[in-house]
């Protein structure tokens, strides 16, 4: 029995559909990946800068004393600025 061979045009269309499918699935994945990355970046910044810096500053100032921890009070900034 002779099996009907698909025409060349049909083959091209089937191939194109196969090739297109992964691409279509890939795009939303990429968007989700981008959203996830941005979310992680914001969380990273919030923890390290938003919370962390303030927490470390407060703890260090309590531990070492504000004068020793921070800039010298002996030197007025105005001395440099207007000097």
């Amino acid at each position, binding site marked *: 029995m002779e099996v009907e061979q698909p025409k060349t045009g049909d083959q091209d269309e089937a191939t194109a559909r196969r090739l297109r499918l992964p691409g279509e699935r890939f795009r939303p994945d990429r968007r989700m990946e981008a959203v996830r990355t941005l979310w992680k970046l914001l969380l*990273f910044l919030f*923890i*390290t*800068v938003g919370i962390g810096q303030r927490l470390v500053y407060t703890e*260090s100032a309590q531990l070492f004393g504000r004068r*020793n921890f921070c800039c*010298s009070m002996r030197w007025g*900034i105005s001395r*440099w600025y207007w*000097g």
Partner: protein
Amino acid sequence: MGNFALVLGLTWLLSLLEKTPFGEYGLPFAEAFRANFWIGFLLGLAEASVLVALIAALGGYSFGALAQHGGDILKWGLLQLGGFIFVGLYEEFLFRGYLQHSLGRLVGFWPAGAVLSVGFGAVHLSNQGEDWVGAASIVVVGFLFVFTLKRTGNLWYAVGLHAGFDWAQSFVYSVPDSGELIFGHLSDSWLHGPKWLTGGSVGPEASVFCFVTMGLQFLVVAWLFPAERQAAVQATEPS
């Protein structure tokens, strides 16, 4: 030190979650405090020295009398050195570690570097004595650090450069660093003259000569770490 520990811990946690080797975020332990760090440190020291020398040549800087004597010179010198190594580690790893790696994957290496360098400059505006010229200078130095990351493959050179430059400014030349004066500086130095020359309250970072010395640093990094060599190293590394 506390800030750096926080960034280090969080990045380590994220490296586990993302199943990414920790070294890919810019501070591979195998390279810690090796040749690139010390080359960077010496060049940071050299850059600050050239910068202060240029300001002094136009009459804008005087070293003054020693503010520390005997053992105090060693004590404060080492304390500030240790402190500035942690400043370098913290700021480099915060701005060019996980953030640069992840944002770089999203938008590309240089656009990520540009965004983070602008952020790097912007956060320094909260420093006492900082101004827009100083912040612009920090944006440019941010680009320099990104450039060293691109050429050397990690952040150790940038950490050394950062620490060397800050230590030389704050301790050796005893001038404000990013608008902040640090306790225990070596001398009672004096900046005098127009702001474009001395940087005013910001310190030499906001001097016009700082943009010149940073330009020289770009050339030195390009010369020390040619792009072709970096490409060859990456090609030979197992993926």
